[in-house]
């Protein structure tokens, strides 16, 4: 025989498990499927060009710590080795350039960011898929 109090406790425990599972499901569905926020790899030292990895992105940022100016470009991968330059931005000195795109169904572009400079410098680039360009 199972006492009433034990049965009540089992029901409460089961309700708690259901509530926790439901909360997890809601939290999972509310979170973005893929969050991108990455600095360009292999960019230590002096370079005239650094690229981000291929990913779903919205924004690209770049700076030349050597103060020789930079351009950043958001390249869309069209497939089959074809790319389109969606937007490029150039600034002089040690200033920061950025592209901000929000195109297509999810506002993201599949491709990669790129930072270039006319002469070798300490370049640093970052790409993300945040909804604001910041």
């Amino acid at each position, binding site marked *: 025989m199972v006492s009433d109090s034990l049965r009540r406790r089992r029901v409460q425990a089961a309700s708690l498990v259901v509530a926790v599972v439901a909360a997890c499901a809601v939290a999972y569905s509310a979170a973005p499927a893929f969050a991108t926020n990455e600095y360009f790899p292999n960019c230590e030292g002096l370079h005239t060009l650094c*690229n981000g990895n291929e990913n779903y992105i*919205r924004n690209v940022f770049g700076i030349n710590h050597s103060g020789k100016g930079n351009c950043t470009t958001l390249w869309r991968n069209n497939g089959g080795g074809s790319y389109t330059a*969606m937007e*490029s931005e150039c600034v002089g000195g040690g200033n920061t350039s950025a592209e*901000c795109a*929000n195109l*297509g169904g999810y506002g993201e572009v599949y491709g990669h960011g790129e930072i270039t400079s006319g002469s070798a410098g300490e370049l640093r680039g970052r790409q993300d898929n945040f909804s*604001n360009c910041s």
Partner: protein
Amino acid sequence: MNKPRSSKIVPGAALLAIVAAGIGLLVTAALASSDTAKRSTASKTELAIFSQPPALRHLARTAAAGAAKPPPGAILAAVVGETELYALHNASSAVGAGGLTDCVYHFTNGLGGAACGPTSEVEESGIVGVSVSGGVPGAPGAVLRITGLLPNGVQSIKITDRDGVTYAVHVADNVVEREDNNAATVSYGLPDGQVETTDVTELIGAIPRQPGLPGASS
């Protein structure tokens, strides 16, 4: 014979409390004077657009679905044709450069870009960004756009085209924008008489015609 211990403790505690209160007052005064100094320094050079009363500011619009958005706090400074220009003050560096930056953003049909520089430098000498959208420079349909966030007192910029033709573009609320696929240089005079020049041809010469390999550098 023995005096109560509390009579010794109470004056000691009171002395400690007085010393602590004194230190607290000194620290508070120091912080307040430092804050006042910072504010007075900022008010001398801060761009006029960032000093507008909040009621007159047009903060970032609620962007339509699918449109690129400026960061929160960005001020809508101008609308030129289909392009919206925003100015942002004291923003954190997007690439971890350290220090605060002032930025000018431009958005046209879901695409945009920005030029940012250290706040003190932008307030002193301004910043110019050169963007190319819709392809690499010179590609059919590609648009070359010049945007600037300029110090107080700069009334206009001078654009010189590749064919030598020169013309002026008016600056309003510290920002300026111009589409010109033939632009070669941009220059403007600062209130102290110095002239700032941006070599557009040299800058866009660094834009590659083909992308590098993802994740690679050279």
